[in-house]
């Protein structure tokens, strides 16, 4: 009788034992698979956390390497400005989530009926950012402002405008209203038509004098506005350098990659980096990075411990199950079946169980992940058992099982058949 048939007959006839070993294998494999999925989910989640830290870098003109010229307002730098092409080139680098660059001016706004939109101040000028992507404006990123209605200004929006809720209400404006802006109504500046696309709330305390170093502090936060860069350019058409970009902020997806992203940006050959300075800003990430990586290390350790323990458990279980078959081993040897054939039979039986248990564990761990998903919501959705996990577990598990059977058989196989028979229970 060949050993394959013996293996199948054993597994089928001793189905209770087979079932037990099967359940154990299933449980342990599910554990390891879930563990692997959890480790990956942790990685993803940590990346998400890092993404929320608003790590960014600033590209600004390097005034120290540029020339200087003097005009009627004093001397000014002739250093090259940041162009829109440059922004797009940098913005297309992998790992950059978004960017903003803005030109600041203090225009006046009028309703369609021609009435001036009033500010808190007697002077009706608004401190306005002509922004490419207002979502990434420092004021929104830092949480001082919050967009409560409408949308942010984006690059493809040529004539958008965002005002504070106070101003919108006081002037009876609502989303979609047409507003026209003039940079300086006392000069020969053009009137540019815009559409109110968003309204923000002020969360920060503007009365706090901590920001007095900034020119913008002369305006009340409610008198701030954001308009499309394009609209700003049109309004400032009479001011040669006034509509050019001095600096731009780029936000990265993963704060841990900030340095790599910056390095890649600095490799863009079409930009003369002598003329620009890059400054990294990842203070928040720096603050939490060590605690965050602690969490990562702990979870990884946990998974490693789980995996190691699982291996030990499998070896223990198999050695127990092999040792309980000493008598059988003795008989098989006595009837002249060679040791390798006997061991091979045991290996085969174990693999037979594994062949069923592993795919089932794949399904059951997916089930576990699914159940966790409904229990814990979003976080657990990241706990996904991938085919790669399965392949890993199946291959390593298979090797481990064979090794475990061999190791477990050593003690029995070292004995002479006579000793086995006399020891048997």
């Amino acid at each position, binding site marked *: 009788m060949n050993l394959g048939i013996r293996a199948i007959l054993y597994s089928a006839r001793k189905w209770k034992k087979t079932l037990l070993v099967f359940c154990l294998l299933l449980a342990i494999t599910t*554990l390891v698979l879930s563990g692997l999925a959890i480790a990956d989910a942790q990685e993803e989640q940590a990346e998400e956390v890092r993404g929320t830290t608003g790590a960014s870098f600033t590209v600004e003109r390097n005034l120290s390497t540029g020339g200087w010229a003097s005009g009627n307002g004093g001397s000014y730098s002739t250093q090259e400005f940041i162009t829109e092409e440059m922004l797009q080139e940098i913005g297309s680098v992998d790992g950059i989530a978004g960017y903003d660059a803005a030109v600041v001016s203090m225009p006046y706004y009028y309703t369609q009926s021609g009435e001036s939109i009033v500010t808190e101040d007697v002077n009706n000028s608004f401190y306005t950012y002509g922004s490419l992507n207002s979502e990434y404006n420092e004021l929104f990123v830092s949480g001082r402002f919050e967009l409560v209605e409408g949308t942010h200004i984006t690059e493809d929006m040529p004539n958008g405008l965002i005002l504070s809720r106070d101003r919108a209400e006081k002037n009876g404006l609502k989303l979609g209203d047409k507003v026209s802006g003039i940079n300086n109504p006392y000069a020969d500046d053009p009137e540019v038509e815009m559409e109110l696309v968003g309204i923000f709330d002020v969360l920060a305390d503007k009365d706090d*004098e901590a920001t007095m170093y900034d020119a913008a502090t002369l305006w009340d936060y409610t008198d701030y506005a954001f308009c499309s860069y394009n609209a700003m350019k049109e309004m400032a058409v009479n001011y040669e350098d006034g509509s050019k970009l001095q600096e731009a902020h780029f936000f990265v997806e993963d704060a841990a990659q900030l340095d790599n992203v910056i390095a890649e940006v600095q490799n863009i050959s079409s930009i003369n980096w002598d003329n620009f300075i890059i400054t990294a800003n990842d203070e928040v990430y720096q603050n939490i990075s060590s605690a965050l990586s602690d969490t990562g*290390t702990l979870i990884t350790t946990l998974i490693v411990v789980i995996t190691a323990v699982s291996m030990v458990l499998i070896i223990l279980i198999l050695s127990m199950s092999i040792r309980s078959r000493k008598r059988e081993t003795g008989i098989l040897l006595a009837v002249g079946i060679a040791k390798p054939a006997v061991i091979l039979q045991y290996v085969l039986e174990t693999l037979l169980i594994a062949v069923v248990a592993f795919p089932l564990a794949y399904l059951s761990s997916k089930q576990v992940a699914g159940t966790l998903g409904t229990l814990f919501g979003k976080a657990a959705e990241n706990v996904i058992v991938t085919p790669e996990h399965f392949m890993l577990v199946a291959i390593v598990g298979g090797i481990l099982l064979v090794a475990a059977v061999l190791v477990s058989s050593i003690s029995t196989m070292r004995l002479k058949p006579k000793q086995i028979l006399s020891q048997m229970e």
Partner: protein
Amino acid sequence: MNLCKRACLYSIRKKGKTLTLLAFLLVMATLMLTCLSIQSATETANANIKKALLGYFTINAKTLESGIPEDTVSQILDVDGLSGRYTLRSYTYAAYFDADGNLLEINTEGAAQVPEGYENAGRVVANSNSQEDSYFTDGGFEMVEGNPITTEAGSQVLIHEKFAQRNGLSVGDTMLLGNVEDKDKTIPVTVAGIFTNTEEQDSIGMAPSYDLYDNIVFTDLSTASFLLYGTEGTTNVQYGDFYVNDPDELERIMTDVQELDGVDWENCTLTRYDNDYQNAKESLEGLQNIVFIAIAVVSVICFLVLALFLTLRLRGRIHETGVYLAMGISKGSVLLQYLLEVILVAAIALFISFGTSTAISHQIGSSLLSQVTSETYETVDLTGENEAAQEPTEDLGLAEIEVAVSAEDYALVWAFGMVLCVASTALAAYPIMKMKPKSILSQMS
């Protein structure tokens, strides 16, 4: 032979089997204990993240007649949940005199106007630590000479490089700060340091003379308090930023603070600043959930595996059971013997597991520590390329992560382990015990 003796003899004579069981239980108990210690360590790590996201609230008591008094500040600091990190700030104006009472000259070039009464006056900024003031952190101010002001009392000032040149002042000199309205009310201060601005002031042409960078003076809080409120010996402040441990508790802490006596909270503005935390909140909760999920999965499967293992073990003893029953030993007694064996081994395993899991936890703890040191080094190295002067990483007062087996965890594992051993042995024994001795014996293999 009583069942205790049988249990002991079985355990001793069947060394291999007992050792396998011991190894199994030990591994399980160690796994559980390690998991629990890792879980509590991740809780610490998570609390550290929350703390490092620096949630704080600012009290703006500018409109109050006497600001925030000193004892109110200490009461606020006693509120549960504050991290102990805080900044007190005051802003005022002062007329500048030299030690002899002669007016000092200010810069008026580039000023939108020179308001009346401020011809020789400037802005006075007082901060618990002048280095942390926004002029220094965001405005590009830098010390040129001397030391920043870090004490709340001390009658010191920092002056601008140009102001020092204009008036022939240097570090160590004494000057007088006078109340703008009542110029006779003066306070002598020592020049502790000289600063300069690295960035052009962008409000030139718009700001009044006293707000020009050249005319700003940094001082300590008690000096500002004297100028603002005329206090002597006690320090009242206009603003306070108080950092909390857990930004989730900001709301509660702010409510608690507003219940304190001594301040007219109605006329104060309290603002919460926890944007970084709010951004990260959801993801952080996710991270925390993942740890919980891991522990839950491990626990459930551990128990499952243990139950299965004990069943497997008992099934190997069907024949023995038949023999006992045939000898007239009652089923209860046999079951009790099996339970006793398992409990005996479990107790030993649990005792040893404390040692093993403590050792493992210790190992994890020290690997965390070495990781921290190497990482700090790395960040300094990398950012050094991009930023000329990188300040050393701030000490946020984060708790050291301790991976240790707590007494509660240990007790928990004991309780659960024992209950589980008993339950699964009893459960595994049930089908065997139900059989008649004869059928047990005939089933032997």
